[in-house]
């Protein structure tokens, strides 16, 4: 065959190479304008190529996107992020020690779930992917409940049916996480359409990874959101990686993901996903926009997947070990901490104390949760539950299978 002319996207750096983030388009903090929420999408096209940032290198909040939150709010945000991280750390260790079958951390991306959760109203409906556990922290789901899910124990909200981290919370208005990538994205738009049809001003928010945005569902969501001007916030979390594939394979080589927005007539913003203040401000803007009938917003969060994809993954096979240290947008926890210290509302001591407090909180929750059983240790859920909720009422063929299993188990 003649030599191939196929273009193949490049990895920014492989194992043993030096991380090279020069491909990233950055804007200085404070530089990007903040248009009115009712701006037509066509007038903010260029924003898709900028990067909204509030925190500058000296930990100051600057520019028109500065959300002017009370220090207390920022402290609460910091706490939620730190709790998310403490929780992730502990669960990761529990997986390593064989107590949990699987886990996914959000290390390095905590600002997104937490700041966005805080910027929305409780009645707003959230359709997360699997890396926004911060939303559960913000909305106050007891850690014990989350751990029971991870353990598939007798208090598992999923009744043993889902892999760890596939939470849901009807009363907290957080939708069920699906193992199938991207499917929730257009569902959130349908939810938002229904909110509009019913005349409420609730908005929906949903999250997708940059890798998952390759799925059909992304297109359907964008299109339906645009056609019906649905009150929805479409978050695309660009953490640069989809398991082993670099963001170029999802279409990020030649343009930003935010720029998909304008193509559909949707405002597309690009935000520093590791900047709590910027994420909060952008989310507020998009929510207000949606609530006031000005339609959807696509937000690309530029962040980095600091950890392995999941506990089943080994990133040393496909990227440099020290890449996160070279990531130009830093660590979201450190940055908010630095800002709070810079404005005199936090200290290293308070930080250490809070770290210890949160770790203790996680430990206490873990200790309680395991008393309700673990995947392999009693007490266990009744396997009969396997046959429930397939339908609202159990049809005959499932009743028969249920009985058959019972007989099988009684045999011993």
């Amino acid at each position, binding site marked *: 065959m003649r030599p191939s002319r196929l273009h193949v996207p490049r990895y920014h750096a492989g194992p043993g190479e030096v991380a090279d983030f020069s491909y990233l388009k950055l804007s200085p903090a404070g530089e990007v304008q903040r248009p009115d929420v009712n701006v037509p999408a066509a007038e903010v096209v260029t924003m898709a190529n900028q990067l909204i940032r509030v925190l500058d290198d000296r930990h100051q909040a600057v520019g028109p996107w500065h959300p002017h939150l009370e220090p207390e709010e920022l402290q609460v945000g910091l706490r939620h992020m730190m709790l998310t991280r403490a929780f992730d750390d502990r669960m990761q260790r529990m997986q390593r020690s064989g107590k949990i079958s699987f886990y996914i951390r959000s290390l390095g991306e905590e600002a997104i779930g937490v700041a966005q959760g805080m910027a929305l109203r409780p009645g707003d409906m959230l359709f997360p992917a699997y890396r926004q556990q911060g939303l559960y922290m913000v909305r106050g789901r007891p850690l014990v409940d989350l751990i029971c899910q991870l353990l598939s124990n007798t208090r598992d909200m999923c009744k043993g049916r889902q892999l760890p981290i596939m939470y849901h919370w009807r009363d907290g208005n957080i939708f069920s996480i699906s193992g199938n990538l991207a499917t929730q994205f257009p569902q959130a*738009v349908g939810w938002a359409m229904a909110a509009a049809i*019913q005349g409420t001003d609730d908005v929906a928010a949903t999250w997708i990874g940059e890798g998952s945005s390759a799925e059909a569902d992304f297109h359907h969501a964008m299109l339906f959101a645009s056609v019906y001007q649905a009150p929805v916030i479409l978050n695309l979390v660009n953490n640069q990686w989809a398991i082993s594939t670099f963001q170029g394979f999802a279409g990020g080589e030649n343009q930003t993901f935010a720029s998909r927005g304008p193509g559909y007539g949707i405002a597309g913003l690009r935000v520093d996903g590791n900047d709590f203040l910027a994420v909060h401000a952008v989310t507020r803007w998009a929510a207000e926009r949606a609530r006031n009938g000005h339609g959807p917003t696509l937000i690309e969060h530029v962040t980095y997947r600091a950890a392995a994809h999941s506990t089943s993954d080994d990133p040393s096979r496909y990227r440099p070990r020290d890449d996160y240290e070279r990531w130009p947008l830093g660590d979201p926890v450190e940055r908010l901490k630095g800002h709070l210290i810079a404005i005199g509302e936090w200290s290293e001591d308070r930080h250490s104390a809070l770290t210890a407090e949160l770790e203790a909180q996680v430990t206490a929750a873990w200790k309680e949760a395991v008393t309700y059983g673990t995947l392999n240790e009693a007490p266990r859920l009744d396997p009969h539950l396997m046959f429930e909720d*397939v339908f609202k009422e159990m049809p005959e063929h499932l009743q028969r299978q249920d009985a058959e299993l019972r007989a099988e188990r009684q045999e011993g």
Partner: protein
Amino acid sequence: MAQMNMIQALNSAMDIMLGRDPKVVILGEDIGYFGGVFRTTDGLQRKYGEHRVLDTPIAEGGIVAAAIGMGVNGLRPVAEIQFADYIYPAYDQIVSELARLRYRSAGEFFAPVTIRTPCGGGIRGGQTHSQSPEGIFAHVSGLKVVMPSNPYDAKGLLISAIEDDDPVIFFEPKRIYNGPFDGQPDQAAVPWSAHPKGEVPDGYYKVPIGRCEVVQAGTAVTVVTYGTMVHVCVAAARSAGIDAEIIDVRSMVPLDVDTLVESVRRTGRCVVVHEATRFGGFGGELSATIQEECFWHLEAPILRVAGWDTPYPHAFEWEYFPGQKRVANALKRVMEAA
């Protein structure tokens, strides 16, 4: 009571449900302003407004996904897929999401979505306007699957489907929209007004999902079938002079096994008939289950009559369609078996 064809009966069901329940919304391609390519939703947008009866982009996967989200937000969506042949782009949302949501969230979330879609051949539609894909939905845990064979059932089952909190895939055999086609394309079309099941109450009523109907009692052999083939089987049994008990399955999931089993135990013989391709089709489930439950009563093998295992060819529609002759041959074979 009124005379209705199947399209009118379906329209009436949606009209009634839109009127009774403000949570009911209808969505699909060409279904609003225009009233649907088969006119099944004719007049509904004018009557209930364009926010209750929505035209959508041509994206079956998006339609189902949006319907799921609407269902989660308290609405009761009825989505139309213009032809069953075009339901595959929505397969992931149906199988991975619609069917699984209640289960994976332990009952906290569910989406009471009905998906209506015209199926089956006999209208010169070629390989992409003729398919009967019920088998690939019946195999999916968490979906109810329904196919009426007449206007009365169509309306009653559709109302049941819309009120059902579980997802229902509702197949409409389009060849019998206008009349009870018996498999003879060369004969004059019979309208529903000439058939007792064309008598349809104007108001609200339900036909339960999960119950077969014995269309015709008989003693010699049980014919298990559904959709258009009900009428073909009735005619085939008559022409073959066989006293067949003909059962319209109506609901593939949940399946009314008891009625089927009781009948086959009585007759000792069974033929399973559907228009869908044979290999790996729903007929396999019917045959296997009946065999398991009725083995000691069977006097002959259970035979299946179905579409050939090819796409539905435009030029050979009537050679493809499992018509009276093919059904009658199978009936004779099971009767001769000794």
